[in-house]
């Protein structure tokens, strides 16, 4: 027997979601456990505060349960939830007039999002993580948000989520894409960084 590739996040989510739709209602809990972490990083990457992030994520889950039948392929559930959280985040940001969505930021403009790390959190970081922090902070917010999500996605799933992330299909799968290239450029330029 040849070993098959281990199931990716999207695979496991699809299996739980398909079972849920077949009537195994308990599997929704498994889906929530699997996908809420990445939805957290999706919402927080849009600069929502913690409480608003929770609200937005809960809204996305409620919509999923209400509209479960509208999702054609179980495999699409990961992308569907990411898209819903992103859209809901933008809606909340615009409604509250708090800021403009990260997606509409100019690509070149880094912001103080990550620079404002609280001292307690910073104290927990290793030296190499501080270097990485500085490098990530120097990227555009859009890149920060994108890398933050991609870092939580299994590589074979890139194609499935690229559209949800507003990326041309294929640009984060076979190729690195600009954001990751920029990050590597920043790290390479930092003498204190040694590739892990």
């Amino acid at each position, binding site marked *: 027997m040849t070993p098959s590739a281990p199931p990716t996040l999207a695979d496991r989510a699809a299996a739980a979601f398909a079972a849920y739709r077949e009537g195994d209602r308990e599997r929704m809990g498994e889906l*929530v456990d699997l996908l809420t972490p990445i939805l957290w990083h999706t919402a927080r990457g849009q600069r929502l505060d913690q409480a608003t992030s929770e609200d937005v994520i809960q809204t996305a889950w409620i919509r999923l349960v209400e509209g479960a039948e509208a999702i054609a392929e179980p495999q699409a559930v990961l992308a569907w939830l990411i898209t819903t959280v992103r859209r809901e985040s933008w809606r909340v940001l615009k409604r509250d007039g708090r800021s403009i969505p990260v997606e509409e930021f100019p690509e070149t403009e880094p912001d103080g999002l990550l620079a404002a*790390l609280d001292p307690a959190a910073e104290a927990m970081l290793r030296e190499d*993580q501080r270097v*990485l922090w500085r490098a990530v902070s120097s990227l555009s917010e859009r890149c920060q948000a994108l*890398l933050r999500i991609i870092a939580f996605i299994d590589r074979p799933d890139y194609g499935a989520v690229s559209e949800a992330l507003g990326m041309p299909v294929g640009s984060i799968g076979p*190729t690195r894409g600009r954001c990751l290239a920029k990050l590597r450029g920043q790290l390479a*330029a930092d003498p204190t960084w040694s590739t*892990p």
Partner: protein
Amino acid sequence: MTPEDRSSVADGPLDGTDTLVLGAVRELFSRTDPMPSGLTDRIKFELTLAALHAEVAELQELTHTGVRADSASFTPTESVTFTSSTLSLMVSISPAGEGARPGTVRIDGWVTGGPATVELRAGEKSIAAEADANGRFSVDEVPRGPVRFILRPVDARGRPVITPVVEI
């Protein structure tokens, strides 16, 4: 790195270094801004409510002090009353009988306000209890830990009632 270099890097296939860098990014965000620990439980609770179209009962009283945080967290207790617009539920917890599995307790409950079926949820586990004509029910060997109750009025027009989680 010149812009040209950067563009050729961007177009290149993902390599081992990319995988390591992304892994480091993942660890960085997991440390600096982790998902709140109670979030998935709160979401599951909201989904259960949505699926049941249920009313959330209020935690009315505890026999000993305990702080109620929010509807999805829990508080240690020995006897507790929940009320909703239609049904009330009083629950008391006592040591399990002789020969019961260790780490379990006995629950006695009393539903008032109309006939209803009772479901006890302990994590993923669901235990059904039949209330008698007076609304009384009991369940032996309930594992210690967080539980909640779902009451379903026998009259199908009645709305189900779900309680906050209590620690038993």
